């Protein structure tokens, strides 16, 4: 945790602007937060004062027939999801809730969700990333200016897309004050095929077969040690189908036929299916102890099993694979050696990694993200200076 001594929580956007203006004038760094639910992510911020968006709450626009919702940044995600639920709609990126993973009960805010660009199992669909569903933002830059990018319509290529730049920038380029998101109808029914597989390579082959089928698979995950919820002990591949209830038996039957060569196939339906995917979404099967570290690697799916094997061999990693096998969650000892093994595995697979959660000594000491190539690192410095000339927004959050 960063050692913040003073917490600012203005009641409105103008208050955020004033706080940034004052901090820029005094060159006082600010830790940018919603409710701090992901304070433990990446590196500790080097700031004595925090600036929070908790005062900015409320849904400002919701048009179900246009599949669009705007909310102030500090609005809890749960509140928005409850409202969408009443209209049989949902946030299409299936944003995870990492309260359990970080060991607290603070709710995540919609602004924090966009600032960290964390997507759930539906990421594997086209346009499935959270940032793909950000239609518009309002933000306060380090210049203490309010800017908007995007808007409230689904198709918009007007000007440079600063929504994409701000999504996933972890508060280092601007403070989101309001976001507008694309919605999806909530599927009527959910069904999961559980395939018991011999090993991870067979598991990823099953997931690839499912994702390469014409049946609209909306989730493809792999549990290397089974799942207590299902009474499974060995590796299990999960494929999710969602649509009108009357469509699912046919599709499940066809898939089952195609996949039976890989292992026995069981069906999990409705609430049990939803609960299973919530667990995958929130990486709960990792069951990491508080003193352990958690990494998140993204690689080409067919490289997932090799990455997993390397991490098991290096430090006995406990694993969870999502996104067809391409997203590898790993939990293990918070040591330099384990981190070095993760970096090496990501590099060997041509992919990327994040040190997602770790005790302060480790996450302060190591690169929590891969180094960027020199020409890009130089552009990144210029972009940072263009958005935050005094370097006051979340210093040290992403890189040391």
């Amino acid at each position, binding site marked *: 945790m960063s050692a913040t001594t003073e917490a600012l929580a203005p009641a409105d956007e103008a208050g955020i602007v004033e706080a940034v203006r004052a901090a820029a004038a005094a060159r006082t760094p600010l830790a940018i937060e919603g409710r701090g639910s992901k304070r433990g992510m990446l590196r500790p911020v080097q700031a004595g004062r925090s600036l929070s968006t908790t005062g900015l709450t409320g849904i400002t626009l919701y048009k*179900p*027939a*246009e599949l*669009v919702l705007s909310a102030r940044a500090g609005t809890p995600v749960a509140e928005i999801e409850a409202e969408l639920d009443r209209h*049989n709609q949902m946030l299409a990126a299936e944003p995870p809730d990492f309260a359990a993973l970080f060991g607290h009960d603070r709710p995540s805010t919609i602004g924090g969700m966009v600032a960290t660009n964390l997507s759930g199992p539906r990421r594997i669909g*086209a*346009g*499935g*990333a959270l940032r*793909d569903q950000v239609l518009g933002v309002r933000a306060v830059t380090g210049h203490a*200016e*309010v*800017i908007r*990018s995007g*808007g*409230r*319509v*689904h*198709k*918009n*290529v*007007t*000007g*440079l*897309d*600063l929504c*994409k*730049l701000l*999504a*996933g920038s972890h508060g280092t*380029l601007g403070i989101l004050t309001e976001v507008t998101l694309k919605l999806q*109808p*909530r599927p*009527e029914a959910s069904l999961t095929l559980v395939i018991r597989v011999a090993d991870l390579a067979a598991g990823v*082959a099953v997931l*690839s077969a499912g*994702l*390469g089928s*014409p049946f*609209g698979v909306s989730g493809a995950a792999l549990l290397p040690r089974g799942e207590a919820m299902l009474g499974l002990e060995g590796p299990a591949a999960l494929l999710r189908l969602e649509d*009108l209830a009357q*469509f699912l038996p046919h599709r499940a039957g066809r898939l089952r036929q195609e996949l039976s060569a890989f292992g026995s196939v069981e069906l999990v339906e409705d609430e049990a299916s939803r609960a299973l995917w919530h667990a995958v979404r929130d990486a709960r099967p990792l069951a990491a102890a508080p003193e352990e570290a958690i990494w998140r690697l*993204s690689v*080409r*799916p067919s490289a997932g099993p090799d990455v997993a094997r390397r991490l098991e061999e290096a430090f006995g990693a406990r694993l969870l694979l999502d996104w067809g096998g*391409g997203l590898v969650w790993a939990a293990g000892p918070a040591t330099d050696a384990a981190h070095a093994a993760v970096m090496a595995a990501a590099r060997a697979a*041509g*992919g*990327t990694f994040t040190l997602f959660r770790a005790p302060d000594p480790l996450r302060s000491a190591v690169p929590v*993200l*891969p180094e*960027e190539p*020199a*020409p*890009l690192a130089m*552009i*990144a410095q*210029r972009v940072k200076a*263009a*958005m935050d000339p005094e370097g006051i927004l979340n210093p040290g959050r992403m890189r040391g």
Partner: protein
Amino acid sequence: MIDLPKPNPAVLARRDAILAALHTLVLDGPFGQGVIGDPHRLRAYETDGLSAYRQPPLAVVLPTTTEEVAAVLRYCRQNGIRVIPRGAGTSLSGGALPLADAVVIGLMRMNRILEVNYADRYAVVEAGVTNLGITQAVSADGFFYAPDPSSQLACMIGGNVMMNSGGAHCLKYGVTAGNLLGVKFVTIEGEVVEIGGQHLDAAGYDWLGLITGSEGQLGMVTEVTVRILRAAEGARAMLAAFRANEVAGQVVDAIIGSGIIPVALEFMDRPAIHACEAFAQAGYPLDAEAMLIIEVEGSTEEQDVLLGRLKEICARFDPISLRVAETPEESLAIWKGRKGAFGAVGRISPDYLCMDGTIPTGELPHVLRRIGEMSDNYGLLVANIFHAGDGNLHPLIMFDANDPESFRKAEAFGADILKLCVEVGGCLTGEHGVGVEKRDLMPVQFTAAELTQQRRIKSAFDPQWLLNPAKVFPLEGNPALASAA
């Protein structure tokens, strides 16, 4: 006519030396097409899909490798020469319009498909591969590349990335940005950087997302890794015609509100229906004020269920006609008129401007009423085609390019429509890009602070403003183009 910056006389004076230098950087192919300096051959590059604007460049280079692109960019930066990236030249916003003192870097000779991987569902292609070329390379195995702009036969994936192209099917599959994994990016300094890769989500800033749709302002893309998707079992369309635009608008709301997301949901107004029917004889109802084409995907049984539900919804709104395709051939017939819409309008008018604003879908009846009033005031006909599910409106304004007054009026009419789109909560461009066409309207949508912030990002990539200058941002306020106009 739009203002372009004054050519740099020092660059024009060095024309021969620049051509000689470019010849050392880009190899000729068997037909000598590596570097073009001959004024007659340069005319082929003087315009793009927005043919009202023309300006031959200083030179054109057609490289075949990333290294050649990098070498040309490095040379141009060192010598202060402006650069215009170009794909197939199908931009409808003048995105590839040259400047007299600029070197056009055309990507059409970089047209190889480098890798297709079905297990990991991606393809790596050079930037000059056509949009449809990608789908054709994988369709025999049941896969496709989802974004499908109308120009997909000709337009190139590098241009699609630069404009973040959409198409009729992005309601379900999203636009270009949502269907990419990585690009090979060349900076103005001539540095080659891999952004993204074969995996989802980069750690760190989302450069891929920022570059997509940047209209050549930040750098060039020479290779693209796209996601390929398994196609659905089948698709079928239906046609529904109504007595008023308002009614068709309500039907769109009712469909989306019902929880069905069709793969395509296209709207045509009366003039568009008539133009397309005269051209294609698709059997469109000529007594209708508004028509919807709705397409669904899935197995034959699933299509039946979805089309049945859609028919029920449409039936609640007193339709003039409802026609559900029973076969793929009947679907094609329904699409035939819509797909030929641009040609159809070209047949009844010597020239037309295709506008591209987006509006909140609920504003459609109001916006069409206002466009009708403008049409009367300007004395110019307009046909409206609308991607109704996502709010992207394409009014086709008909005029006569041989009559300067007619062209001036068409431009003013178009500007008024786009201002209206912004006024009702939409934007200037949904998929064609700002280019030169909408550059001077940017202050309608953005505040001065917002434009300044976007310019700062541009400057972070391209400090001397050599990359595709005079596009996207109004000329005033651009330090590097201060000598302009």
